Structure formats: structure tokens, C-alpha cells
């Protein structure tokens, strides 16, 4: 393997990793705070992608970076609003309910997302092109680095830094962390836990929608998009530690590297290294890389 190959492989892994992180960030945030594993997160990611596509279409196509980013942000806002509805109707009633029921309820919600997407947008495949400025690649010697890949990596890093800053350096963010750690104490101290939960859900869903918009040109738009990312996102947050944003970030990078090198070494069994890694982590360190050990 030449240096160029390694560079390309690294960039590919990071691209996959950051794409998965963008999807997983909202999922792990909601789990960390509300202890709800939201199976439908992928469905809202998909709705975000479709929404961004429609918005960009209405504004004359995704050729301009400004339109592309605007579409992503608008998708984030839209899905956040949907999240508030879902919170009201479904998630609130699941507080204190056993995990199995929560998983099933959110799985049911995923089916509703898929059904609604088909009703609203039809069955056709859509391909959204990245903005003109992201078309093509940088050639560094023998290494080919698509600009879209670099954009996705950059987006992932920006979102990560933004979330870490929010959670660790701002008042509201630290409140979210406090409540995740000990809601009973927080309530005793007079914090309106319900409000913070709702806000967290909104942020988690907004992240799903934003991810959908940012990644809309990364793959074909079809009603099966939700299932494509579900297992990957789960794997990443398990390995990283459920509830930890930095864990999801590191977990994504680790899994991305394992998957890419695994495909190199074992091309006949795609996906195997991913599951083996996920299983090993769950067995050796079930709380994940950054999670707290269970008492």
C-alpha cells in the first residue's frame, strides 16, 4: 500500500465516521438525558434529508452553497418542531416505562416516518447534487480527495465542537448534563426538569434534521434511507458510550478505521469487522469508551 492509498483510505474512513457521527449525535444526546433509545432517529434523519431536498428544489437547486446550508438548517428547525410534537404525544408517556416498550414505541414511530415519507414524496429515487463549490476533488499526488468528503468531515468536526462547547461551557448545556447525571437532585434544586427534557429532545431531533440536510448529497434519497443508518448509529454510540458526545465522535472514528481496513483485509465479508468490534466492546467494556462504569 502506497502513501497515497493510505491517505485516501483515511479520508474515506473519516468521511464515513463523520457522516455516522452526524446521525448519531442527536441519538446519543437524547439517550444520555432521557434514557430513551430512539429507534426512529433514522426516520427523522430521512425526513430532514427529504425536507432539505424540497427546500433546495424550491429555491432553484442545490448548486449554491448558501442554499445548501440554508436547506440543512431549515430542515433542522423543521424536524425539531416535529420532535416537539413527538415529545408531547409519545415520549412523555414513555417516561418510566420499561425499555422494551420504549424501543417498540420508537420502532413504531420509525414505521410511521417511512410511511409518511412515501405518502408525501413518493417512491422515486432522487439524487441531490452537492453545491458546485464542492464538486470534484483535490488531487494530492496519487491521492484523490473528493471535496464533498472533506466537507462532511469538516461538518462533523464543527458539530462536535459546537455540541461540546454547548454542553460543557454554557449554562443551559451544563444543566442538561446535570439532569442526565442526576435528575432527582436537579429537581430538588428547583430545576424544571420537564422543560430541559423537552429542549433536549428538540435539540436531538434538530441534529437529526441537520444531519439529513448536510448529508443529502451523500447518497440516494429513498424511503429506505432510515434503515441504512440505524445499525451504524447504534454501533457507534454503543462503542462510544451511550450518552457521551465525545464518545460517539471517537467511536465513529474508530469504527470507520476498523471498517475501512477490514474491507481491505477481508473484502469477502463486508461489515463483519464492524459487528465484531461492536460485540467485543460490549463484552470487554460495556459502558463504552467514554461511558461511566456501572455501579
Amino acid at each position, binding site marked *: 500500500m502506497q502513501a497515497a492509498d493510505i491517505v485516501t483510505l483515511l479520508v474515506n474512513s473519516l468521511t464515513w465516521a463523520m457522516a455516522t457521527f452526524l446521525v448519531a449525535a442527536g441519538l446519543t444526546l437524547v439517550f444520555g438525558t432521557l434514557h430513551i433509545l430512539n429507534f426512529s432517529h433514522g426516520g427523522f434523519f430521512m425526513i430532514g434529508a427529504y425536507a432539505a431536498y424540497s427546500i433546495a428544489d424550491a429555491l432553484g437547486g442545490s448548486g449554491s452553497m448558501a442554499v445548501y446550508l440554508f436547506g440543512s438548517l431549515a430542515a433542522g428547525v423543521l424536524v425539531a418542531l416535529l420532535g416537539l410534537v413527538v415529545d408531547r404525544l409519545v415520549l412523555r408517556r414513555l417516561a418510566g416505562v420499561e425499555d422494551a416498550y420504549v424501543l417498540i414505541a420508537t420502532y413504531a414511530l420509525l414505521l410511521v416516518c417511512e410511511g409518511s415519507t412515501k405518502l408525501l414524496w413518493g*417512491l422515486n429515487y432522487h439524487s441531490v447534487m452537492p453545491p458546485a463549490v464542492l464538486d470534484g476533488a483535490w488531487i494530492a499526488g496519487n491521492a484523490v480527495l473528493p471535496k464533498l468528503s472533506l466537507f462532511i468531515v469538516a461538518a462533523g468536526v464543527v458539530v462536535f465542537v459546537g455540541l461540546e462547547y454547548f454542553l460543557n461551557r454554557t449554562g443551559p448545556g451544563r444543566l442538561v448534563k446535570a439532569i442526565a447525571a442526576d435528575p432527582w437532585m436537579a429537581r430538588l434544586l428547583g430545576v424544571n426538569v420537564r422543560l430541559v427534557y423537552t429542549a433536549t429532545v428538540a435539540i436531538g431531533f434538530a441534529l437529526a434534521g441537520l444531519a439529513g440536510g448536510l448529508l443529502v448529497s451523500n447518497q440516494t434519497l429513498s424511503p429506505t434511507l432510515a434503515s441504512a443508518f440505524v445499525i451504524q448509529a447504534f454501533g457507534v454510540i454503543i462503542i462510544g458510550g451511550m450518552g457521551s458526545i465525545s464518545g460517539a465522535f471517537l467511536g465513529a472514528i474508530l469504527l470507520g478505521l476498523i471498517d475501512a481496513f477490514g474491507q481491505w483485509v477481508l473484502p469477502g465479508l463486508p461489515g463483519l469487522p464492524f459487528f465484531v468490534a461492536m460485540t467485543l466492546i460490549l463484552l470487554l467494556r460495556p459502558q463504552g469508551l467514554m461511558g461511566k462504569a456501572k455501579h
Partner: protein
Amino acid sequence: MTHLDRRSVLKYSAAAAAMAGVPGLVRAQSGPLKIGLITPLSGPQEFIGSYVRNGAEIAVEQINKAGGILGRQVALEIRDDKANPAAALAAARELLGAGINLHTGGISSAVVLALGPVMQQENGVFMTCGAGTEKMNHENYSPNLFRPGDAPDARTRAQARLMAEKYPEVTRWTGLVPDHEYGRTTWSIFVDALLEYYPAIAKKKPVILEPVLMPYGVADYRNGITQALRQQADGVFNCTYGGDAITMFQQARGFGLMQRYKVVCDAANEFLIARGMKQQLPPHWTGMHYYAEANKGNPMSDRFVADYLAKTKDAEPLGWAAEAHASLYAFKQAIEKGKSSETQAVIANLKGLTWDTATGPRTMRAEDNQAIKDVELVYIEPAATDKGYKVSQYTKVDGKSVIFPPSPGKKLSLKTA
């Protein structure tokens, strides 16, 4: 066109309500002739299944307008097989149990292979409208299964021969192959044909590189694309399919992969990639089950296109619709020839049948229930129009000249295995 609008929801609700209370349908001897349509109408193959349904419905409307079959009007019993054998089996058994013995639809290979034994046991007939597996004419052959459309080997071999004819100087070939049975078999047939036709037609020996195995059912193909870049081949044969193919082409754009090849040959995606990518698509050859332009002047084709447009507002029916259309006309001819819609009579009359379709006349081979028809290949390029693409070349290849001889019951054996 494929939206589920309120009118169709109401129509289906009424139909469901009507069906809900009738578990054991009485066999109707003099009522309409019911033919089962079992095809994916939900799930990942839904998009293609919708073409199958529309094509079948148009055929039925046309046939009924012309007086039906043996004086009886035809009615379709439509069931969703979700591209999943268990659901297909349930649907097939339900229809068979209700007295319906003739069925069409089936585009998923797994479904077709699963239905073979059941059709034999329960004395039914099933036609596939585009499943890609060659096994149904080989080791999984059943007299009750028919393929009224393209033989997978005929089309792939026609494509290889076309490459040798048009691109004799392109001798370094590689493949983008999805890692499953259909993908690997298609690639093997293509390679076998390259090794046959290039020396014969281009007087050169082709160099076959190790194909790039693409993971199946994922959303990221970058590693495979990178592998392909390293190979520096001149020609590429793509067997990835449907939404996966579009995603792969989309991601390949960033790498400029397709631009590095002298020719891109796609196995079976018809206009899917073109419609998905529009002006951004790389120019490529692909195979069509049916291409309207290539059949202009054939009255059946012209009528089919007109009726399709009127029904669905879609001016470009994809090939699977035409395969469904052809299957119903095959049934019509076979039933009228034998004056009976009973299974054994229909089987006997389908075998060896020559019948007219939107692509011209086809013949159903008696030995292995495979139709011989012209293979249609088109060259698609981006265009500065609303549609985003145009067909700049097309060719019809005589199926007889490329199809493998029949070998029912035996595994497919390639000379260059």
C-alpha cells in the same frame, strides 16, 4: 405518478373492506377470468413493482376492450409480495386456494425461486416480469415457471459483443460487482462473453482485472470506488442495481471515477441512474427490457406508450412495465390457442409459443421456459434539457444470436469458468 393519492387510498379501502369478509372465494367459472399479480408494492422494490402493476393493468384494459380472452373479461387480483418469499408464498397460496391458477409479477429472484415448487405442487403457473436469476432456467427449472422477458445471459452477452464491436481498442476491463449471487453470476457471464467476442471480433485478447466487490445494502461505496481508481482500467461493467447503483455513481462523481473510463457499461438499470443524476450522469450504455423509441412504428408499442401516458402521465414507461404487458399477452395467446385456461393446457401452449409484444415477436423456448426476444441496448448521455439526459444511440440485437442453448435442470456452465 407514484404518489398514493387520496382517490387510490379510498379505492383500496373499499376493496379491502370488500375482501375482508370473504375468506374462501368461490371458484368462478363464467365470471371474469382472474389472473394473479404478485409483485412488490411496498418496501425497497416498490418503485419497480409500480411499473409492473401499471404495465399489467394496461394490458388487461387493452385486452378487455378487444373482447377479453375466450369471451371472458380479465380481472387482476393484485397482491403485495414485499419482495420477500414468505409474503409471496402467502399471497400465492391464497390466490391458488381461491381458484386462481395463472399468475404474473415477481421481480425478486428469491420470490421466483420460492414460488417454483409451490406452483408445481398446487398446479399453478407463474411468470416473472424481470427477475434476474438464471437459476430458474437451470438447476431450479420448473415447468410451471416462465420468463417471458429477457434472458439474463442473452442481454449480458449482447452487451459484451457490442463492446467488442464498438470499442475494439478497450481491452482492459473491470467490474463493479455487488457481493451477491446475481452480481457475481452476471459478471461471470460478461467475462465469459468478453473472452469469446473480443478475439473473434476485435482480434484482441481482453485483459480482465479482478472485479471490485461492492458491499451490498450499505450507503457508502467510497472504499470500493477507491479500489477501482487504483486499477486504471479502460472499460467498466457495472452490476450494482437500483438505489444502490445511484448512490454509488453519485459518490463516484466526487472521485471522478467514471470519467476515467473509455466506456461505462451498465447491466440493467434502464433509466434509473439517468433520472436520478440527470445532467450529472456519466455517459453509459445500459440494457433496457423495453425502449419506446427503438420500437416506434410497432403498433402494439405505440399503443402501449400512449395508454401508459394517459394512465400515469409518465411518457417513458420503464422496461418492467413492458414485461408485465408482454406476460399478459402471452397468457392470452396460450389460452386462446388451447381454448382453455387450465394449468396443464396453458403450460403446453406457452411452450414454443410465438406471440406479439411491444418489442416485436417473441418465442417461448419449450425446453426451459425462457423467451427469446431482441435485446435492446441504449447509450445515455447528459443533456441540457429539463429531463437532463438523452439517448443518443440505441441498438436492437437479435436474441437468438446471443442466448445460451437451453439446459434445464443443470447448473449454468461457462466455457471459461
